[in-house]
């Protein structure tokens, strides 16, 4: 008997296939690492600095400003919009001994200094509002489809429609939202329009996942509850929903990343290129819902495709992108923590 390794075709093919599979996996990893690595490498210097407090607080707390680059008194100056105005006022009121000298070879680069605070706020508002809407509508429809409705042709058609909705490109949702909310309902470019558009976009995910989560709750809980004289709603509220919630949240986490990240649905419905007031600086409460906001993905789109590229604009591009990545990761992490707590509380 010869049990030694035979170097035949079968073995070589095995090795080749194995190598191919491994190489594909590593290639994917490499691409991911390159993207994230570039963003971190170029964005980190914007966000962090070597001396105390180590974080570039201005970038997180200030609004974008225009950068003015000019020469004065033989020195090259780079000033943000506010500093530049103050500087020019000083020049405009010269002392008697020193005549005014106009700055020379001036260049202005929009959004290149200051921070992205309004964009962060806008994105957080958009995510919170649209996820609340999507979860409410989605869980309600899932409960109806799974617990109340009879399983027949109509519910099958509804499910098919929901699945199809998941395949609609986001720009179509954007145009739909623009047509329905912005124009037809007259909400203009506003938080409300953005919330509804984004909510409709993730609704299929939420509905499908909620249905799965509801289905996974053991039948025994429903039967036990009903046999004790509970109504269907009491049963759902006390013995089904609490146990389905972790599953519903798991899928919503994917939804959050998508809502926070999509640019197309908000570019027609909710996002402003630039806005001076922060969202809470409104005259009355209803204005809050009907104002446009700045949003991170749209800001990134603007600074990377709508303004001339040069060494001054790169800073805000990579900085915003890194903040955006961190923000999405943070929201997802928070939801995962919440889900794990619920899971521990209602484990079965």
């Amino acid at each position: 008997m010869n049990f030694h390794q035979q170097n035949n075709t079968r073995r070589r093919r095995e090795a080749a296939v194995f190598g191919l599979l491994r190489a594909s996996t590593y290639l994917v990893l490499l691409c991911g690492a390159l993207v994230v690595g570039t963003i971190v490498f170029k964005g980190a210097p914007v966000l962090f600095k070597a001396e105390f407090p180590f974080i570039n607080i201005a970038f997180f707390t200030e609004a974008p400003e225009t950068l003015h680059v000019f020469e004065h008194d033989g020195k090259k100056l780079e000033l943000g919009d506010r500093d530049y105005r103050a500087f020019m006022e000083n020049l405009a009121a010269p002392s008697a001994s020193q005549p005014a000298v106009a700055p020379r070879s001036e260049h202005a680069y929009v959004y290149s200094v200051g921070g992205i605070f309004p964009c962060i706020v806008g994105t957080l508002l958009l995510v919170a509002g649209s996820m609340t809407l999507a979860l409410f509508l989605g869980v309600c429809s899932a409960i109806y489809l799974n617990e109340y409705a009879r399983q027949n042709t109509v519910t099958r058609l509804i499910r098919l429609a929901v699945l199809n909705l998941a395949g609609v490109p986001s720009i179509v949702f954007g145009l739909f939202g623009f047509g329905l909310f912005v124009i037809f309902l007259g909400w203009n470019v506003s938080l409300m329009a953005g919330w509804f558009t984004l909510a409709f976009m993730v609704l299929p995910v939420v509905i499908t996942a909620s249905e799965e989560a509801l289905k996974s709750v053991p039948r025994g809980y429903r039967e036990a509850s009903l046999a004790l004289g509970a109504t269907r709603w009491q049963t759902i509220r006390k013995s089904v929903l609490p146990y389905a919630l972790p599953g519903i949240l798991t899928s919503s986490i994917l939804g959050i990343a998508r809502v926070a990240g999509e640019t197309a649905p908000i570019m027609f419905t909710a996002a402003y290129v630039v806005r001076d007031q922060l969202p809470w600086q409104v005259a009355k409460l209803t204005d809050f819902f009907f104002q446009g906001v700045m949003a991170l993905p749209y800001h990134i789109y603007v600074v990377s495709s709508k303004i001339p590229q040069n060494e001054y604009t790169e800073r805000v591009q990579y900085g915003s992108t890194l903040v955006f990545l961190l923000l999405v990761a943070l929201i997802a992490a928070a939801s995962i923590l919440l889900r794990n707590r619920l899971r521990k509380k209602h484990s079965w």
Partner: protein
Amino acid sequence: MNACLTKQILRTEPPAPRVTATNTTATPAPAEAVPHASPDASLETEIRAPHLIEISNLDFYYGEKKALDCVNLTIDANRVTAFIGPSGCGKSTLLRCLNRMNDLIDGAAVRGGTIKIGDADINAPGIDAIELRKCVGMVFQKSNPFPKSIHENVAYGLRIQGIRDRAEIARRVELSLRGAALWDEVKDRLNDNALGLSGGQQQRLCIARALAVEPQVLLMDEPCSALDPVATGKIEDLIHELKTRYTIIIVTHSMQQAARVSDKTAFFYLGRLVEYDDTRTIFMNPANPQTEAYVSGRFG
């Protein structure tokens, strides 16, 4: 309104005893399939037991499939009645008709005949299944405590009825747990998760949970099929104690269990009631050869 009505009807005194207690020949039934033997010996004891549940000519369908075919059965108050028969014979279906749990299954429906509990036809339009289920409790094959504390499990039925008084809830939880012979084992850990209990304890907890809403009838769907002999013995002892206060109907695959716990036994086969009589008669001297073949273990 209807709810209160049902409850009132169910709570009224059972109808006057009948002499033809064991005999259901008053209702038309296929003669070849439902032979009824009522030996004189059992008649005397049966006279005192009033009928609580009266099932007449019941036809039940799952969609187009007939699951119960013209079942006639009267069940006595404060007795244990066992339903036996091979799988798919309709015994669980009949049990679930009694608290209308079949309402939850799409396409399942009673298409003929009536079920009367007390004086109320439970499938009549005005009857609220929710009120019915408060009177007709149920224990399932697979013990299904909620993943909550032991206390909360028993209190569940009380809370959904809107009882908020904590002292009252605590009192009735203790009463129910004592009723299910579980109190001494769990009184020091009422706030522990019920899933930490053993299988037999979980099943007794489910019984306690059903008792908490103070039903009159207790339906048990193979309550011991997942339990070992010791836990089974405890449940059977419990059934003996409970029958002084409740009318118990138990579906079981174990003929020994039917023989041990029940006063009367109904044998079902292919959706028909083959024979219904005193348990002793069914096991010792059955009238139908099919019954005899089944209880002696020659088929099924």
